[in-house]
């Protein structure tokens, strides 16, 4: 464990934690995490992972920063309006912590590129909040046996879950198919309190760090639901479904396919 004097200072509050220590901090610095989306959730997740010293953070995003994003997407700024979101977040994260290597992937995730993009990473973070991509990420993680930390937000409510393929549930154990597009609010209706992704993203980042450290109990087999208005956290048990189409005993989904993009992403 050779930390520079600067690193000793930067990570001192981690190193003195018995659950982290120098050995844990070393694991964090060697970890490779891929985040899908540098939006409402991806910004706080990446921000905290960068602060924690995660060695490699890859960001998949092909959108550009818009003024309407800045109400909640805290890694971007008026200086990066029009800039690719992965690129904008990279500038923010690297100025927070130059130890971190931020890899930008300015592509839209699809059934062709997803496995190739995920294969070199230890943990995947879903911050997309659109159903076709959510299912694609879920299926790819199950097939590649990659831990997935998933978050979702809408209005005043958010959800977090950790998927450890074949150990606990997956997204399809919960809902076999994405809901039909008509049931999901359209973009004009999909409001969200700007701070909500901060709460959910911080919970996702916590799950990622616990997985890296191998400490505590991951949120596998549970869905954590946060209701901001009622100030209520509910931890709902989600059983693994042995008949699940992708992670069950006899999976029917063995290849990835693309679903139509008719949904709104926050």
């Amino acid at each position, binding site marked *: 464990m050779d930390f520079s004097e600067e690193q000793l200072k930067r990570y001192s*509050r981690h190193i*003195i934690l*018995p659950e982290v*220590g120098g*050995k844990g901090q070393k694991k964090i610095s060697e970890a490779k995490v891929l985040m899908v989306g540098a939006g409402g959730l991806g910004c706080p997740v990446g921000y905290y992972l960068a602060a924690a010293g995660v060695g490699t953070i890859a960001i998949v995003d092909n959108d550009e920063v818009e003024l309407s994003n800045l109400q909640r997407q805290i890694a971007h700024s008026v200086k990066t309006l029009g800039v690719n979101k992965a690129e904008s977040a990279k500038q923010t994260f690297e100025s927070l912590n130059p130890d971190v290597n931020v890899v930008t992937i300015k592509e839209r995730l699809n059934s062709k590129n997803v496995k190739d993009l995920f294969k070199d990473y230890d943990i995947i973070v879903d911050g997309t909040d659109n159903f076709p991509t959510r299912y694609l990420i879920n299926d790819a993680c199950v097939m590649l046996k990659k831990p997935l930390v998933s978050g979702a937000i809408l209005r005043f409510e958010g959800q977090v879950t950790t998927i450890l393929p074949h150990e606990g549930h997956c997204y399809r154990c919960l809902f076999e198919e994405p809901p039909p597009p008509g049931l999901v609010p359209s973009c004009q209706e999909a409001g969200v309190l700007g701070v909500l992704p901060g709460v959910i993203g911080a919970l996702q980042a916590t799950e990622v760090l616990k997985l890296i450290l191998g400490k505590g109990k991951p949120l596998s087999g549970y869905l954590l639901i946060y209701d901001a208005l009622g100030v209520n956290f509910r931890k709902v048990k989600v059983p693994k479904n042995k008949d699940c189409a992708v992670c069950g005993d006899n999976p029917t989904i063995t290849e990835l396919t693309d679903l139509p993009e008719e949904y709104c992403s926050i």
Partner: protein
Amino acid sequence: MEDIKIDKNLDIRGEVCPYTLVKSKLGIEMIEVGQVIEIILDYPEAADSVPKAMENYGHKVLKIEKINAKEWILQVRKEVED
């Protein structure tokens, strides 16, 4: 008096809190359970806080002794894995 075998020496004179603890924690991670680290320090608050923290981590403080006007010797036996 029985002589204690020291497996690792650590000099953290000149360090202040929280780096006294940071360096002590890293030092103890470098020895095995059952081994003893001897730390020399000169930050007065650390003479109190570092031994307490070591006990909280589950290790055994064998000795904390003021050896001159400004310096302390702390001996800790590692009791639990990191």
